[in-house]
């Protein structure tokens, strides 16, 4: 049992869920706690959520995230960091040395984390979930330059950096100038249990498709980098060869565009654009889908692939970014080229061969254990362990005679 404690700084934590960081920090913290690493999460407040709670060994503090008007998001983040640092400092100080690592998630907590690192002289570990350059496909203005500069500062101040894929390692080394030796790869995780509970699959399936129709599922933001338009363009070609329904789950600026394009292509009767669905319904859809199409053009990791694998939905994908590290062509997914014709061919290949679909399903189901949260937490404790070993061997730490020599 490690015995030390960690302060985790994250701008989102359930029930405040904006993107992927919240579920990541939530699951990682709980599993770390099970492995004997007590975690103190300091995060933003959320209506109805307690300011302080203890949940399965994870201590959560939700700070006043500054609710007054601010000029823009980045300025709000700066103000939020003032309160986050203040509370985290109280927690670390009152731990009397038991908290030995500060773990930051993305640039959103950089100001707080870096100040804490120096004031307590504790090692800082940072997970870079994505970069500004990657998220926007480039750096075009001063707003982005500032965020990218914050990211560089955070990585330069961190003892170790965690990335979720080799694709992200490349992005962080190239976009932020980080040395490769400083980075560890720890994938995102998934809890497969909620995908295996009792479910009336026939009833759910019947909501979207007739018994003779196959179901093709897309789950993700409806934005360019997810390749969702390629899938819409592939619909007519699939329908010419197999009766099917296509379900697009998610929101994004391309939503209206997709609905209109379905009309133009004459496939509206075979396409659902549902918006967001609740978690239970979404997990059910993964389980009844005959294909989960993941046409992403940019994907730092690709957690949707883990969800499909956990639920047993055969994957058809371009294999961009981190996806190619999760699934293998012909083994756990059908890979295609980034164009509608190839995507349609891949989907039809899986729909027309039940034995191939079963093979993809079975192999994916075996592979999913690599992404269990207990495995992710174990890899993370190795990083903490290495960091603390190096830290303990070095001289940068709070001196036992802090406050210098008296009588100057």
């Amino acid at each position, binding site marked *: 049992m490690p015995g030390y404690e960690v302060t985790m700084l994250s701008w989102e934590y359930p029930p405040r869920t904006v993107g992927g960081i919240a579920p990541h920090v939530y699951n990682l913290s709980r599993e770390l706690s099970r492995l004997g690493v007590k975690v103190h999460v300091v995060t933003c407040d959320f209506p109805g959520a307690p300011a302080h709670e203890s949940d399965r060994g994870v201590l959560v503090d939700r700070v006043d995230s500054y609710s007054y008007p601010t*000029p823009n998001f980045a300025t709000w983040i700066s103000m939020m960091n*003032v309160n986050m640092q*203040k509370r985290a400092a109280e927690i670390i*100080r009152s731990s009397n040395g038991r908290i030995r690592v500060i773990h930051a998630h993305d640039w959103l907590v950089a*100001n707080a984390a*870096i*100040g804490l690192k120096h004031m307590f002289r504790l090692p800082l570990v940072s997970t870079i979930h994505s970069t500004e350059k990657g998220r926007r496909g480039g750096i075009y203005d001063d707003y982005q330059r500032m965020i990218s500069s914050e990211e560089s500062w955070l990585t330069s101040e961190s003892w170790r950096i965690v990335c979720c894929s080799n694709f992200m390692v490349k992005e962080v080394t190239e976009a932020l100038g980080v040395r490769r030796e400083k980075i560890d790869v720890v994938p995102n995780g998934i809890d497969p249990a909620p995908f295996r509970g009792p479910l009336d699959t026939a009833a759910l399936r019947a909501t979207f498709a007739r018994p003779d129709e196959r179901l093709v599922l897309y789950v993700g933001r409806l934005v360019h980098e997810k390749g969702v338009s390629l899938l819409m363009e592939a619909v007519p070609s699939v329908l010419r060869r197999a009766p099917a329904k296509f379900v697009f789950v998610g929101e994004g600026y391309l939503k209206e565009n997709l609905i209109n394009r379905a009309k133009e292509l004459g496939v509206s009767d075979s396409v659902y654009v549902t918006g967001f669905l609740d978690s239970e319904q979404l997990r059910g859809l993964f389980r009844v889908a005959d294909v989960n199409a993941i046409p992403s053009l940019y994907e730092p990791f690709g957690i949707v692939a883990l969800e499909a694998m956990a639920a047993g939905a055969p994957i058809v994908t371009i294999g961009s970014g981190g996806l190619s590290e999760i699934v293998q062509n012909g083994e756990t997914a059908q890979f295609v080229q980034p164009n509608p014709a190839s995507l349609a061919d891949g989907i039809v290949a899986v729909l027309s061969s039940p034995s191939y679909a079963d093979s993809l399903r079975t192999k994916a189901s075996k592979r999913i254990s690599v992404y269990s949260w207990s495995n992710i937490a174990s890899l993370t404790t190795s990083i903490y362990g290495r960091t603390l070993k190096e830290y303990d061997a070095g001289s940068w730490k709070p001196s036992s005679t802090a406050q210098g020599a008296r009588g*100057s």
Partner: protein
Amino acid sequence: MTSHLRTAILAWEYPPRVMGELAYYVERLAHEVSGREGTVHVISFHEARPATEAVSPKIQLHWTHNPVDPHLNVLTWSLSLCSEAQRVAADIFYSPSGGIDVIDVHDWHFVSAAVGLKKALGLPFVFTVHSLEEQRSREPSSPLSSCVRGLEWLGLFESAVAITASATLKSQVEALHNVPPSKVRVVDPSSPSWVDDTLRAYREARDLQRGA
């Protein structure tokens, strides 16, 4: 208790970086305090000066550089600079020949740094208010000014003692930020007792923190 105070002064301007009168005020203060007490560390900002300069045997200047560039506004600028000021102050705190007994933070720019140092290292701070955003700003109701007022309030709330240069400003501080009058001292820089009064506030802040 007669031991010499070791002081850290946080101010966003100090000669040769002169934005207004604050730079000269802090320069004079550093010389006066170091003449009577222990080492004075001034933590300020300059893009081009070396990290540390010795002004005299008892005055050390620490020039911070902003680790983030560019910035959107003075708030994002000052709040990332605060983390750098915390690094510098912590290095003084942990230095075998260093140590800090009290921090004097001037106006809002470095308030967040002082609050963090108080919470993390137990260092007391005095908040010297030279003017208020309400009076300085051309758009006092703008979101940016609202944030600055929020930091002023934080400095007044978290400081052990606050200083103003006049009774008028003291009244304005109390009225605007709902501060108890007992917390704010009027220390007139033109008065012969200016240094004595300032040092009295420093010792009071130190003693309050010790008793906390």
